[in-house]
């Protein structure tokens, strides 16, 4: 199979379901009577409320990134270098939030710091009207990004490098600063950029916790398209976000390349030690407390609130359609979501695996490698834009998908495929080409070589990738909120809609649905943790 043959399907997929809808929405917004209205860009950018949105989007992303690094870097060290009982469980616990749907995180923080939340009950403290709720929710989500990206590399750095520096006369701190820190710097930068990207484009969390005061670009795009119906403003904002995300991804790709080169790595098993001395014990304790307060407590409160009616009242309410919010019983959303997520996973795995196979080839040229960065775009480009773009671009023959159920899985697969590529690529690249040659010399045909050598080595990674795609698809909100049909909402859409309605019953049902969603995602993740052996991936 040639490189181009492998690339054909992924390229067609991204062109049809990503580039085209985004182009369609931009054209619709900026082209009036066949003429481009580029003056709109300047008009929009100079509006005071839009400038306020831009400013808020940027500074909250910076603040979230700084806060996440501050809280998660010690954990990266603890996971990389210290050995303690329950480490595996803790690692899974830390990762759960990352795969949780944004609306679940939103609900959980609402239950913790919102009106009638735990802190409100105990001390009358409410944070949901402040930016702190958003920042803390962002840390909640992205803690795992830093721990996994930085910790994964840290665990594999050869401690003898630091020992060599010590033997040459460096102090312990000096050796760390001159040897370990520079080696970690690209990973820290890559993780920081990832966190910045996720928080810069944050939608679900800000939608639920931001109230009327705080709005990111993504939320504003949603407001302009679905509430104000000002398409040209939305198009300008989409372009702005596109440019920002492109810049972030370009820097990210550069740091990733730097991270892949020039480091001698060792088996993580040889670098871990039991904690020694009061410093290391204090660090471990600090990390445990942070995880308990920031990651576990919100989820625990969420579960507690969902049980706050006698006899599982909120859960039982989910099975009846009397609430009036939906045409069907809310619990129906669970099945809808699972079906959509399975379809989306299948699509994402096929597209992502083909793209990864093409990218992993040694002879991959510059064209193919630049596709690597393009594949990341759907991660950061406004999911709202994609969702809305689907509606206006895929509505006429030959591709009229408005009435088709496949629309939602396609949008979710778009977000899931980059995760598949990121998970598969390092593993495929690590397969020693000479193993393939050894099989060929023994008489195996190219197809047989792939089946006998590549597949057994990447099977695990393929499963992990599928799991991630499944969790991401299940929780996808920004695009789905546009295209899921009212009579058939997915779980996150149903949660958001319940939260938007007054009354204890709706609130309780939202908590119950969120809990269900969390359980499904966490179960998928725990399965993955058992499978996952290679921790060099990014997620």
């Amino acid at each position, binding site marked *: 199979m040639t490189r181009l043959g492998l690339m054909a399907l992924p390229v067609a997929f991204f062109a049809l379901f990503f580039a085209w809808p985004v182009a369609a929405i931009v054209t619709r917004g900026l082209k009036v009577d066949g003429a481009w209205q580029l003056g709109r860009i300047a008009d929009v950018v100079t509006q005071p409320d839009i400038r306020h949105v831009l400013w808020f989007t940027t500074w909250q992303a910076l603040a979230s990134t700084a806060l996440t690094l501050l809280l998660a870097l010690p954990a990266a060290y603890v996971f990389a270098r210290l050995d303690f009982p329950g480490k595996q469980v803790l690692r899974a616990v830390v990762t759960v939030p990352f795969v949780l749907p944004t609306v679940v995180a939103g609900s959980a923080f609402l239950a913790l710091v919102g009106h009638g939340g735990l802190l409100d009950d105990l001390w009358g403290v409410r944070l949901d009207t402040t930016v702190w709720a958003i920042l803390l929710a962002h840390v909640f989500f992205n803690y795992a990004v830093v721990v996994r990206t930085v910790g994964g590399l840290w665990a594999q750095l050869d401690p003898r490098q630091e020992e060599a520096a010590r033997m040459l006369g460096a102090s312990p701190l000096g050796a760390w600063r001159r040897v370990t820190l520079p080696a970690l710097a690209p990973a820290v930068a890559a993780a920081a950029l990832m966190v910045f990207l996720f928080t810069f484009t944050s939608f679900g969390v800000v939608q639920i916790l931001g109230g009327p005061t705080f709005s990111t670009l993504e939320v504003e795009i949603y407001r302009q398209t679905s509430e104000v119906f000002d398409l040209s403003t939305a198009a300008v904002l989409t372009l702005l976000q596109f440019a920002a995300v492109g810049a972030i991804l370009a820097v990210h790709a550069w740091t990733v390349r730097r991270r892949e080169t020039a480091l001698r790595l060792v088996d993580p098993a040889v670098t871990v030690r039991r904690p020694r001395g009061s410093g290391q014990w204090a660090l471990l304790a600090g990390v445990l407390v942070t995880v308990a307060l920031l990651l576990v407590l919100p989820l625990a409160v969420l579960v507690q609130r969902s049980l706050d009616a006698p006899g599982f009242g909120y859960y039982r309410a989910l099975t009846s359609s009397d609430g009036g919010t939906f045409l069907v019983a809310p619990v129906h959303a669970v099945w809808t979501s699972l079906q959509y997520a399975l379809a989306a996973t299948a699509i994402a795995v096929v597209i992502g695996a083909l793209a990864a196979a093409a990218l992993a080839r040694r002879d991959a040229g510059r064209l193919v490698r630049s596709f690597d960065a393009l594949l990341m775009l759907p991660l950061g480009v406004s999911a709202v834009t994609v969702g809305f773009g689907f509606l206006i671009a895929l509505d006429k023959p030959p591709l009229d998908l408005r009435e088709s159920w496949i629309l939602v899985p396609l949008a979710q697969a778009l977000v899931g495929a980059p995760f598949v590529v990121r998970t598969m690529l390092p593993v495929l690249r690590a397969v020693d080409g000479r193993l393939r040659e050894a*099989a060929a010399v023994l008489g195996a045909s190219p197809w047989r070589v792939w089946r006998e050598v590549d597949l057994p080595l990447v099977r695990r990674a393929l499963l992990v990738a599928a799991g991630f795609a499944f969790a991401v698809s299940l929780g996808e909100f920004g695009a789905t909120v546009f295209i899921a049909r009212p009579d058939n909402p997915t779980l996150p859409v149903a949660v958001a809609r319940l939260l938007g309605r007054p009354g204890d019953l709706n609130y309780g049902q939202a908590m119950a649905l969120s809990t269900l969603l969390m359980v499904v995602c966490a179960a998928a993740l725990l399965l993955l943790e058992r499978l996952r052996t290679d921790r060099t991936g990014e997620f």
Partner: protein
Amino acid sequence: MLLSLDAATVRFGGRAVLDAVDLDVAEHEVVCVLGPSGSGKSTLLRAVAGLQPLSGGRILLDGRDRTGVPAHKRGVGLMFQDHQLFPQRDVGANVAFGPRVRGVGKGERDAEVAQLLELVGLPGAARRAVASLSGGEQQRVALARALAPRPRLLMLDEPLGQLDRSLRERLVVELREMFGRLGTTVLAVTHDQGEAFALADRVVVMRDGRIAQTGTPLEVWQRPADAFVARFLGFDNVAEATVAGTAADSPWGKLPVPEGSPQGARSVLVRPAGVRLVAADAGLPCTVTARTFKGTHVAVHLRPGDGQPRLEAACGLREAPEVGDAVGVEFDAAEIVVLD
């Protein structure tokens, strides 16, 4: 001829890594390609295996042109430098891989695996995990795996390269015996002259993608083709000289050379055994700069006067001089070779 290379050429970029190489290997012959790293010897093996396409020339197996045939249809075996055992399979499955992809039935396969493991000295190891093997055991499994499809030609890339010295010396003898018993045709590649001499019926020395010399181990050892081969074999006493009759005019002065030596401007090689130490006031005056113990003798490193290349002499264990001693040097015609 079982294998013939006909002007085989491989270019990377503009550089010829394999430069119009002609080589024949007869049935049952064990040929060792010897050369420093970068001399093109591994590329030679990969080209014969079909893993490296030729830029020019032909490769014939059994007289048939196999130049464009892909690796899995060539029917030659290759044992890789670092073994490349399949990590996810056990020892037995690694050995059975070749017969299996050729459609050999399970019963026959199992019998063959058992027989081959017996042959390489690992009886009953079929269920062991590859990761649990030592370096020497991995090497044996790799050999069994390469032999399993019964290739007409078995190729070995640095077969003993990563093993420690004593193991290497033992395995060389075992391999030599085994190839003799099985009648296998072998083309091996190594940078270690000891390994090549011990293993091969014929040695091919390569330099910069070309064949510098070919001959039996004894021929190559006794009469290196040129200064490069001599230095590669570990001889350092090589210098330019002008030969006239039985005397050569060299930087070390007049050297006696054997009768019938080639005449004119040549390189001469003085074996360490041909450098005789005499009293300080006789022969070429030298200072001892170092002595290294070699087990059977002592290598004495000598510095003659300014502008003269250094010399190495082989001395008996007891008569070796101390570092700093002034000695005289005389030369023995029997241990001097005029190179072509």
